[in-house]
């Protein structure tokens, strides 16, 4: 290749690369549908494949249902479409998943990333793109990382870990608690919170990390039994909590056990069978199947997906409607040219009443409300006991 050809080739490569990365700062150029209405997209980033895909699909279904109903109501001056992006719940795949949504100019906001590790890995990209991400990821450190486009739609894990500890110390008077996490960003964050608060309450703590997908939980369960702890906290997902619960039952550990919202799924009871009995589960989420406020939603969901709404389905539905509301308030569609930046600002200042709770955010994107619910596995079903603070004060 001679020099002239080389420089031409280089120029081609550079232009190609620029075209691919699409220097897209403004975002949200309106695509117009067949009836002349603008088309805006709401994205979702979370685990749609992989071990944790059940959690992701719950959320995705909530988003899709909200989009479908928003269009069906026909009172919007624009069309809403859904854009999926799968990160398999993994931090490694998160940046690519984020880029996919960022590159689609009609995406004005997204629900997710679903997992804390993934949210950490893609937060900078979303911030640079000015694309608002309304996330259920609950690791307390997320708003501290300077991501300007991250808002959290649930109370964070300081609240959740605190609720576990409050229940154990005030209600059950435990003296020594064994705290286990799955080595994920989410689990480790929760364990740190629990440990700190337990120590403040004067309770002895034994901590262990059992990496997700450990081939055999017998050793871990045996260690719990030998520790002499009178209660256990598990911070991780149901896919690991279930085999762990089985082994705990096998080795005969019959003390109170509590697990975090990643375990709050009916799949936990399906996988663990009898071993799930008596486990307590905390969640920032409401059970859409029993709460009166989400009755209609649960019915619609069942009609649409032939299944009961699972973990965070209703919260995702709310988050999607929250974004749609803000676009509407910005005059989207009526010849108004709505940009990502404007949606971001609007969402951060939003005060929106959803089916599950009131949504508003602090300056750093942290959720402004609270409310952690406690459930128990009884007769193979997850049954709500109530709000932790209420349970404790009732004594």
């Amino acid at each position: 290749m001679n020099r002239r050809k080389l420089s031409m080739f280089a120029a081609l490569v550079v232009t190609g690369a620029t075209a691919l990365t699409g220097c897209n700062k403004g975002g949200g150029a309106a695509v117009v549908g067949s009836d002349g209405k603008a088309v805006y997209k709401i994205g979702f980033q979370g685990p749609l494949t992989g071990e944790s895909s059940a959690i992701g699909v719950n959320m995705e279904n909530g988003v899709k249902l909200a989009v479908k109903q928003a269009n069906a109501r026909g009172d919007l001056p624009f069309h809403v479409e859904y854009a999926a992006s799968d990160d398999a719940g993994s931090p490694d795949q998160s940046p690519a998943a984020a880029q996919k949504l960022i590159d689609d100019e009609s995406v004005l906001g997204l629900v997710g990333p679903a997992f804390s590790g993934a949210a950490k890995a893609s937060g900078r990209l979303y911030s640079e793109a000015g694309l608002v991400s309304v996330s259920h990821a609950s690791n307390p450190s997320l708003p501290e990382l300077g991501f300007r486009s991250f808002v959290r739609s649930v109370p964070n894990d300081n609240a959740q870990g605190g609720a576990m500890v409050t229940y154990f110390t005030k209600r059950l008077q435990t003296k020594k608690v064994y705290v286990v996490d799955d080595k994920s960003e989410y689990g480790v964050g929760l364990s740190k919170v629990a440990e700190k608060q337990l120590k403040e309450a004067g309770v002895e703590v034994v901590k262990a990390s059992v990496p997700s997908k450990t081939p055999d939980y017998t050793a871990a369960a045996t260690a719990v039994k030998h520790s002499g702890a009178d209660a256990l906290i598990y911070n991780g997902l149901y896919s690991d909590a279930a085999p762990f619960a089985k082994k705990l039952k096998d080795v005969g550990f019959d003390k109170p056990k509590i697990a975090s919202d990643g375990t709050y799924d009916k799949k936990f009871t399906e996988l663990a069978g009898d071993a799930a009995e008596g486990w307590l589960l905390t969640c920032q989420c409401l059970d859409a199947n029993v709460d009166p406020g989400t009755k209609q939603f649960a019915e619609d969901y069942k009609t649409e997906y032939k299944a009961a709404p699972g973990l965070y389905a209703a919260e995702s539905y709310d988050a999607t409607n929250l974004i749609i509301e803000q676009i509407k308030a910005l005059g989207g569609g009526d010849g108004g040219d709505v940009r990502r930046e404007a949606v971001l600002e609007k969402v951060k200042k939003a005060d929106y009443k959803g089916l599950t709770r009131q949504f508003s955010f602090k300056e750093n994107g942290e959720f402004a409300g609270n409310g952690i619910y406690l459930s128990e596995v009884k007769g193979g079903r997850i049954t709500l006991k109530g709000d932790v603070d209420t349970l404790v004060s009732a004594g």
Partner: protein
Amino acid sequence: MTLLEFRDYLVPGLALGALYSVIAIGYTLVYGVLKLINFAHSEVFMLGGFGALIVLTEVAPGHPSGLVSVLLVLLGLAVSGLVGAGTAFGLEKVAYRPLRKRNAPALIFLISAIGASFFLYNLTGKLFGRDPKAMPALFDNGVLFHVLGAPVDIVKLLLIVAALAMIVGLDLLVRRTKLGSAIRAVAQDPEAAGLMGVDIDRIVSRTFVIGGVLGGIAGFLFGLNSQVSFTMGFIPGITAFAAAVLGGIGNIRGAMLGGMLLGLVETYNVPLFGEEWRYVAAFAVLVVVLMFRPTGILGAKLGRTA
């Protein structure tokens, strides 16, 4: 570590070691005849688990016990062994044989095996869902009896007994039968074996199938002990490969020894250092052993032919 702890971790350690041993033998057998590592072996293991899961879910009643339990376990062993054998047979046909016919370099086999592994892994996830699944209860998973006061549950016992039976059976097969002689002949010198009338292609295929039976059954036993998912093959597969290398790749008794050693190291590491150090401990042992014996514990001494 107290004596009490030592006692309680022994059975889980042996059971995990037995599992690794059985998977490791699959790697070692194939290496023996082809001098290649079958990197899709972890998917043979995974599919064996799935085969047993699908069949047992269809037939298992609510709370089986006694003879029904025994029959269910035998059915699980048979189905998983068959599925494992079928998978291994297909792998050899698709990912190995065409390349052998063209005398491809070793690296190409590695790539085709990894490709086959990805294909099977993702296909399984697509077909059967990406959620973990629980094996139906085959017996009241109670503690069977106590050895020196340590509880032994049925699944652990089954793991150990089945693994031992398979290992002894395989040892006899390789040492005493005509097929075994042929396998050893091909392992030692394929060209000479071919000249003596051994059908090399057939022997290679059968070697894959034998390893597949063991891998498939290991998948079923693993599923009984934990759960079945399309990702379940990866970690045990890598660990068992390490076990095969540790014991001396190509050496069946070495694979057994390496598997047992790693299972015990991983389990006893929990009371000693904590669960987080599981793989660190296992691979530290691997590195230390290979520093002193580069060909593994029972492997050939370097500079001499096996």
